[in-house]
């Protein structure tokens, strides 16, 4: 407000007393009261109920949303709990499977080693048998070869030792034997 305007108003009011300046005139007061009552009635009768109804609806809606949110949160919580339980189960299962696999691998390893040892022993036994058989065969072969050589030599010596007379004697004996048949 411009200071000059204030000064102007003060100079205008200065024409009447102080209280009159504050109180309205009666007709104006009555008209004001009536107008206020009309406005009050209007507000009380229509505006207020609709407003309060709107507020109530909003409140209900908010409360419903809150409940839903609570519910969702609870659900999420329970889901999380379920999930965690499942996770724990899965972990337990996994470690059980790993343990089983380890155990069965251990078993298989032991089996394989045992089998290999048995086979190795069989191979060794077979090799021993074969070696023994081979030795026996070689000995027998050597024996028979030595015998053959000895006899071959003996027959050569006998053949060379046979002179005409001995040949004749052998033939004569053959004939004599034949004639006895």
């Amino acid at each position: 407000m411009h200071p000059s305007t204030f000064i102007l108003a003060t100079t205008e009011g200065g024409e009447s007393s102080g209280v009159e300046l504050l109180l309205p005139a009666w007709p104006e007061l009555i008209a004001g009261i009536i107008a206020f009552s009309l406005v009050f009635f209007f507000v009380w009768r229509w505006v207020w109920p609709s407003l309060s109804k709107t507020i109530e609806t909003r409140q209900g809606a908010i409360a419903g949303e809150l409940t839903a949110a609570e519910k969702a949160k609870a659900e999420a919580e329970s889901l999380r709990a379920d999930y965690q339980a499942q996770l724990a189960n899965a972990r337990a299962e996994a470690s059980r499977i790993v343990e089983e696999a380890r155990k069965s691998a251990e078993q298989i390893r032991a089996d394989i080693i045992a089998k290999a040892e048995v086979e190795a022993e069989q191979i060794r036994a077979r090799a021993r048998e074969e070696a023994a058989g081979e030795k026996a065969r070689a000995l027998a072969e050597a024996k028979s070869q030595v015998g053959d050589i000895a006899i071959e030599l003996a027959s050569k010596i006998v053949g060379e030792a046979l002179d005409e007379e001995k040949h004749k004697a052998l033939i004569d004996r053959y004939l004599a034997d034949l004639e006895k048949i």
Partner: protein
Amino acid sequence: MADQRIEGYARGFFEIARGEGQLERVENELLTIARTFETARELRSSLTDPQLPLDRKQGVIDQLLGGRAAALTVGLIQLLVSQNRVTDLPDIAIAVASVAAASREKELAEVRSAVPLDDATIERLTAALARATGKQVEVKVILDPAVIGGIVARVGDTVIDGSIAKRVDSVRQAVRSN
């Protein structure tokens, strides 16, 4: 199969030799040559060598026998060489002798000895073998050093073995079975 073939050759040779009137000579020569073939390893291997051409083999035969054996005998052996049957010669020679003996209504006595036998011994042997087998026999002596000493006689399926070789063999068996 082989027996049939040998029999066939023997019958053929026999008929040819008889037809030519040289039966006895041919059968004796075949036996002698067969004996040589059996003992001479080199001769045998060169005559059976598949690498050696036929005319070379026949040349070897001609060189060995030409003039010494009857032309017919040489021809028969040439036939065996050309048919690659020279390994059958010993069997064929025996078979020819057997067929020839049969044609004289006698049985062949195949006698193997390390030394030649004189006529008196052969006569004695013929008589003794005839008595022993109950058959008329015809002795053919084959010189075989493998006999060592004594005699092996075979008449048909009967073998009368009085050789040193047999005794050596029995000693060999005894040694082996120990």
